[in-house]
């Protein structure tokens, strides 16, 4: 109850900030989005209220601001410790972005700050987008740098360098395609500070990781059916090939995780005001080359690392992972309220409710994900 009260109090504060923005004149992309998330798995509960404001000002300048609060209640099983204590931790995140558009070009910058008791993250980024071919295509470029600090350990710092390109093209009035490539370098403290490896102690993964992701997405709308379909595919792989390795490290790619993710979404309008979205996401990945399974309850061995192995981890997300996530979402355009006393204020916006079941074949077990959101155009 205390957790919920804290979350609601933070949300109301954020909403009060948002209301201050509502007075200005409206523009096409301007909106306030609020969202509440409830995530539950065997040993973790998360309540997360979020709010985001996007506003376009005069002379092509746009700004956006985001605030969210994570309230994580977790039993230590998920954290990998050996006791059974339950604790609640709060994470606050604030983000701010500003952009300038001229002709078909937009340049922008973003900053994000995330703070919890044992982890602080600061991320800065620059982005560029360019409309091409009669503005039917958009090319995007993003560069970012993140500096994460983990004060509960002595060498707790991780640097992340990120680069991404993206191209979106309308092929017809009802067909969109998008391709994206991202590369990301993690350097420093990559482990989980709370997970202990049997017979070894705190984790010790390689301290550099080069990550690549290719993504292809397509969307097709069928006007006669008032329905649309999206298909997403993502190929992920990481490497350590060119990175400096200590002499005792094994040859070859220390990381080597290879992952495939497919997601299918079907959208269907139901009457004038409702839209139903059904989706299914499937993810499969192989393990990192340095990783071995130390969990006997999942077919592993506690002695799978030798005393001389320089790299070891018991974090299951770096092992073989398979997940499935079916989801149903209903969006309701609230125009029906426009003549209803008191409720007319919500009429310009849209509310949504979604439920997903997240099936995991790791020790975390299956999870429930419930979201409720409301978007109000400014």
């Amino acid at each position, binding site marked *: 109850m205390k957790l919920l009260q804290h979350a609601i109090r933070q949300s109301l504060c954020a909403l009060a900030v948002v209301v201050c923005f509502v007075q200005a004149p409206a523009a096409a992309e301007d909106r306030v*989005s609020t*969202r509440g*998330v409830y*995530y539950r798995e065997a040993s*973790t509960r998360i309540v997360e209220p979020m709010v985001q404001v996007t506003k376009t000002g005069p002379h092509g300048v746009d700004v956006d601001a985001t605030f969210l609060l994570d309230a994580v209640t977790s039993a230590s099983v*998920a954290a990998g410790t050996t006791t059974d204590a339950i604790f609640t931790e709060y994470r606050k*995140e604030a983000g701010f972005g500003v952009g300038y558009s001229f002709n078909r070009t937009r340049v922008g910058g973003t900053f*994000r700050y995330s703070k919890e008791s*044992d*982890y602080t993250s600061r*991320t800065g980024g620059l982005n560029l987008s360019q409309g*091409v071919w*009669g503005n039917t*295509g958009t090319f995007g470029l*993003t560069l*970012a740098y993140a500096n*994460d600090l983990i004060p509960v350990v002595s060498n707790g710092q991780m640097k*992340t360098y990120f680069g*991404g390109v*993206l*191209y979106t093209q*309308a*092929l*017809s*009035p009802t067909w*969109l395609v*998008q*391709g994206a490539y*991202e*590369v990301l370098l993690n350097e420093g403290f990559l482990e*989980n500070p*709370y997970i202990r490896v049997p017979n070894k102690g705190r984790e010790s993964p390689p301290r550099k990781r080069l990550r*690549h*992701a*290719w*993504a292809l*997405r397509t*969307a097709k*709308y069928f*006007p006669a059916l008032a*329905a*649309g379909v999206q298909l997403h595919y*993502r190929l*992920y*792989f*990481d490497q350590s090939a060119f990175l400096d390795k200590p002499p005792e490290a094994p040859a070859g790619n220390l990381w*080597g*995780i*290879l*992952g495939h*993710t497919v997601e299918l979404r079907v*959208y269907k309008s139901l009457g004038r005001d409702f*839209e139903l979205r059904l989706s299914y996401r499937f993810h499969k*990945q192989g393990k990192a080359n340095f990783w071995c399974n130390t969990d006997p309850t999942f077919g592993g061995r506690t002695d799978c690392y030798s005393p001389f192995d320089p790299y070891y981890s018991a974090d299951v*997300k770096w092992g073989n*992972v398979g997940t499935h996530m079916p989801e149903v979402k209903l969006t309701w355009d609230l125009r029906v309220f426009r003549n209803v006393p008191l409720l007319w204020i919500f009429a310009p916006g849209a509310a949504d409710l979604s439920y997903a079941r*997240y099936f*995991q074949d790791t020790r975390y077990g299956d999870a429930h994900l419930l*979201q409720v*959101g409301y978007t109000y155009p400014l």
Partner: protein
Amino acid sequence: MAVLFNRLVRWAPVAVAIAMALGLSSCAHPPVAPWQREYLSRRAMSFSDGLEGRFRQHMFSTREGADGGFGTVGGGCGCN
């Protein structure tokens, strides 16, 4: 397999450049006129998930070691 992926990485900028060049240098008219974009503005045609996607990506990054590909970086530990 590793060789294949290394080649993919090496040729990524070239592939993007070719795709751009094909788009930019095409003599044909744009495939969609401004007055034909009604359906492109539908929710079903948007790849951006906004706040909904923000939580999902954070969740996936804490439970799957192969996250990425959706334009986000940074955030919390997710280690509890």
